[in-house]
């Protein structure tokens, strides 16, 4: 039992302490309050006109709570995506034509009679489209943008409301993936493989976030689209490679400069420890101004990965570490393994850089 909870239990007595802990947990997780309140309003809405407005509250809190829980859940793999909280803002009878046009915001209609639960699907799709990686999405191609939105919305629905996933897939995703020679279909396929390899949120979306910061406010440039396309191909090749197989692990372009360092070969790890990895980075990656390093290995090699990163604390700084599960290919067998990843970013990389 943690010390603060033990202290509360002894000083305040069991009942009060439990109450305080529950309140504190709820305050720390406002999206949980929203979701539970939504259930309460849903119950009240069953009484028809007796609780006028209950359905409206239910729709708002259910949508808001689930979207915020999803955004918070991204904190582990993609904290740069987790910093957004959504708030449903009702438009009511006070609205005027002039005020609406001046504000310039789209109003989404949420239905009372919503048998197919389209309210949630439309709200979630709009949230993903407008909020996630908003900076980077201004500079990528429409098919890249649409693929990301479709993929992330599918992920959101799968986690937060699986009952509506079928509707979304039938109405939005499958019509795109069914088209012959569809770019969206190819991207969705690639994202799926990259995600299974544990590299989608932690590497691809992270790199898109860095690119978004670099190019934000500038003119659109076709080179960004082409780089993103190549980055997807680069990560897909890594995600599907056999363990131990040689692969290109560096991606040094104009806007995006990253490398993946896989710490893994048991013979090498046992015989030489950290040295070959540190030397490789110093001799090959630092001179080429590789800005982000993704040091990746199995969880059992965690201490070694941490030590390698300590040796590289000049010129890199640790952005974060994360554990994840990835499906790795051993000859022709796919095995789910626990992975450990440390993300290092070169110190002093300027957000604003001269155009390449």
């Amino acid at each position: 039992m943690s010390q603060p909870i033990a202290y509360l239990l002894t000083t305040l007595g069991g009942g009060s302490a439990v109450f305080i802990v529950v309140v504190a947990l709820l305050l720390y997780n406002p999206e949980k309050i929203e979701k539970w309140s939504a259930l309460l309003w849903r119950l009240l809405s069953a009484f028809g006109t007796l609780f006028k407005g209950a359905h409206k509250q239910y729709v708002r809190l259910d949508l808001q709570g689930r979207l915020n829980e999803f955004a918070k859940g991204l904190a582990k793999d993609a904290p740069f995506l987790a910093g957004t909280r959504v708030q449903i803002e009702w438009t009511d009878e006070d609205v005027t034509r002039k005020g609406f046009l001046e504000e310039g915001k789209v109003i989404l209609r949420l239905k009372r009679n919503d048998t197919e639960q389209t309210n949630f699907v439309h709200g979630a799709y709009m949230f993903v489209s407008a909020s996630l990686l908003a900076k980077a999405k201004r500079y990528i191609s429409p098919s890249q943008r649409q693929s990301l939105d479709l993929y992330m919305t599918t992920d959101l629905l799968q986690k937060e409301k699986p009952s509506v996933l079928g509707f979304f897939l039938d109405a939005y995703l499958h019509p795109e993936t069914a088209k012959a020679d569809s770019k969206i279909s190819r991207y969705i396929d690639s994202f799926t493989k990259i995600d299974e390899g544990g590299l989608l949120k932690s590497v691809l979306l992270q790199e898109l976030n860095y690119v978004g910061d670099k190019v934000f406010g500038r003119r659109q440039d076709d080179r960004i689209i082409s780089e993103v396309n190549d980055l997807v191909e680069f990560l897909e090749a890594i995600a599907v490679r056999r363990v131990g197989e040689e692969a290109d692990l560096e991606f040094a372009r104009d806007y995006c400069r990253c490398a993946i360092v896989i710490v893994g070969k048991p013979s090498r790890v046992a015989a030489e420890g950290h040295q070959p990895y540190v030397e490789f980075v110093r001799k090959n990656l630092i001179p080429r101004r590789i800005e982000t390093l993704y040091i990746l290995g199995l969880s059992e090699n965690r201490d070694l990965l941490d030590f390698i990163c300590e040796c590289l604390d000049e010129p890199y700084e640790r952005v974060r570490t994360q554990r994840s599960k990835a499906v790795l290919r051993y000859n022709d067998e796919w095995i789910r393994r626990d992975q450990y990843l440390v993300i290092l970013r070169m110190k002093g990389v300027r957000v604003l850089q001269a155009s390449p």
Partner: protein
Amino acid sequence: MEKKSLKAVHDDDLEAVLKGLGIYGELIHGRLGCAFCKETVTWDNLHSILPDSGAIKCSCSRPECVKLLLAWMDKRRS
């Protein structure tokens, strides 16, 4: 933490909002076309209300039009 607001209207207020915006009559008389597919927007298929170059437009709930609406919103942001 950044807050994003999603503007919405619930069916309980829809009639009043459409009246406030001056498009209720057009909707119930079938004179409102979808901003994207041009099909008639009705009470059943109304998906959203959008401000566009000084005019108030509506879009329908066909998945194609929802995608076009999101693309239109993206374009306006960039």
